[in-house]
């Protein structure tokens, strides 16, 4: 795994975050208590004079890890976050995705509509999955959350002008260029608090966090960040291999993205 220059990555992410704040009136941040979205909160603080000046949304299906809930409440208090918990319902879904997928999208749609958010900061990275490798730094979603993956906007140089259709919203992806190992190196450098689920107990840990239903732990003895970084340097397993939903075909994920699920 390639270790990039953290200063350069940080600089670009801050630039994109500030561009977003200049362009959009009502921004929110999506937070799952995972390492990427938590790192995003700290990048936001760097960009905005030590504050998180936007509401932070947690899409909660009710069966997240207890550790995640504890982590959420403690960090929200520490960083004085404006936390919005949007509850999503577990529903029958035609494609078979029950706890992740369409019902999370519905909760997100509701929150966006209620608060009239015009942009959403999301912590996805290009290296997470082949489909995500096609994303833009600022990506438009229409009012039905459809991602027109066949017709993405242009992004020339560092210009992120986008379609000014008022009915949809823009997804902002400041961490697109970051690799998994870069995130951990940054976490170590900045002393960013991390969900304890990432660390090994009983010979198992979670490399990627979903909810209690769909996330599977991996065999590992990595007990701290240094161990995790060491492990990443030698691993061959893809990061999301513990997430049941990713074992579906790639094009199903594409379908999900087109529907607006993260």
């Amino acid at each position, binding site marked *: 795994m*390639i*270790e*990039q*220059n*953290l*200063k*350069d990555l*940080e*600089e*670009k992410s*801050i*630039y994109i975050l*500030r*561009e977003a*704040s*200049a*362009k959009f009136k009502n921004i929110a941040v999506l937070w799952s208590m995972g390492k990427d979205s938590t790192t995003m909160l700290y990048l936001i603080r*760097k*960009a*905005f*004079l030590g504050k998180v*000046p936007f509401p932070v949304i947690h899409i909660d299906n009710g069966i997240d890890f207890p550790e995640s809930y504890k982590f959420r409440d403690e960090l929200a208090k520490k960083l004085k976050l404006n936390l919005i918990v949007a509850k999503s319902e577990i529903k029958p879904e035609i494609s078979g995705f029950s706890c992740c997928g369409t019902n999370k999208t519905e909760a997100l749609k509701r929150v966006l509509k209620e608060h009239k958010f015009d942009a959403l900061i999301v912590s996805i990275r*290009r*290296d997470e999955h*082949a*489909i995500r*490798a*096609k994303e*833009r730094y600022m990506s438009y979603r229409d009012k039905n959350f459809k991602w027109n*993956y*066949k017709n*993405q*906007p*242009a*992004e*020339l*140089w*560092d*210009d*992120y*002008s986008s*379609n*000014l259709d008022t009915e949809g919203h823009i997804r902002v992806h400041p961490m697109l260029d970051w690799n998994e190992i870069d995130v951990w190196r940054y976490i170590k450098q900045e002393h960013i608090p991390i969900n304890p689920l990432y660390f090994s107990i009983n010979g198992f840990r979670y490399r990627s966090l979903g909810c209690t239903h769909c996330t599977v732990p991996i065999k590992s003895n990595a007990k701290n960040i240094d161990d995790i970084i060491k492990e990443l340097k030698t691993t*061959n*397993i*893809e990061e999301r*291999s513990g997430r049941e939903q990713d074992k579906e*075909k*790639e*094009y199903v994920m*594409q379908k999900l993205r087109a529907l607006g699920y993260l």
Partner: protein
Amino acid sequence: MINIYKIVVIGDKDAGKSTLIGKIAMLTKAVSKARIKESKNESKKLGKKFEPAFILDVFKEEREKGLTIDTTAVEVPYKDVAFQFIDVPGHESLIKNMLTGASNAKVGLVVISVKEGLTRETKLHIKLANMLGINNFIFFINKMDKCYYSKDAIIEIFRGVNIFLIPLFNGIKYIKFNYGSALKGENIMKPSKKIWWYKGRPLMEDLYAFVKDDEKTNENMSTIISLQGAFENKVFGKVISGDIKQNKYYYLMPDNKKVSIDEYNKNGSSVSLKISQSDKTDISGKVLVENKNDIMVSDEINAKMFFIKKPENYFYISFLGKTYKATLNINENGKNFIFIDSIIKIDNKIAYQSFSKIKDIGRFVIYDKDLKFNGFGIIK
């Protein structure tokens, strides 16, 4: 910490770009075994024979149609650096995706099929890449296996490319020719015995030599900072040249107001500033300069532009993150995919510089009347 060099891979749709990148990714073991396995399974299900290009063409449509719809960035480690290959669509209809992929690359890798030669589309892409700011190109003549690796086959192409490159707008610094077969893996990582008449390095070695030779582009110039917007009592921006000095006077342009920077905070070139200017409304798109002679101010600019759809008498441009209305005198019948050199009038004054002097403040994005992306321009 490794330096990553962006390489845009351009060329005709059948020249074999995706195959080349896919093959490089496999040979350098940049793509995980899991991803190769996934791609192999997918192609089996589609009843297709696995090709290295499938690793990149992850969109279902792309695989089934056999063409690349959008850009993919694949990172490949090589010796003590890394390359980020940006594979862009070759089809004219997907030109905006090609422009996006090429706009941030440092080197252009042009893939030419020995069977097709230098096509009209490839010429267009080279011209656009050069206009976007790329000065260094490697020409990889692919599919040499189809002509038995014969030297005669490449001579016409060689000549054609050199003639084509002469009048390009933006000055070419380095070019290199390379030959091989992406599918067969000939002359990519290692020299090929089949191309006995070629005494040069394999492709990856050439790329490596190119990027290692990359000179520093920023001369020691006086300070220019482009401004993004205001937040609380601060202003955000990007240092384009020079450095920030506290308690020094700068000029806010195009307003021509004298301001001082009272405090600043840097993350590389991303900066937050406390300036003495109290009215910060509408600060996006403006610049702070140390020396007024470094920039120009006007609402009329002389530009070289590329339009995807033929231009109409007015359109919009995005310059330093801000949108302006622009008008153009069109006297001839416009066409699609047209290059126009002309003066355009903007609805507000801007502070800018010519592209050849300072790229960051010498370029703009073009949108049509409906605010849909329609091309880009370079200030002369």
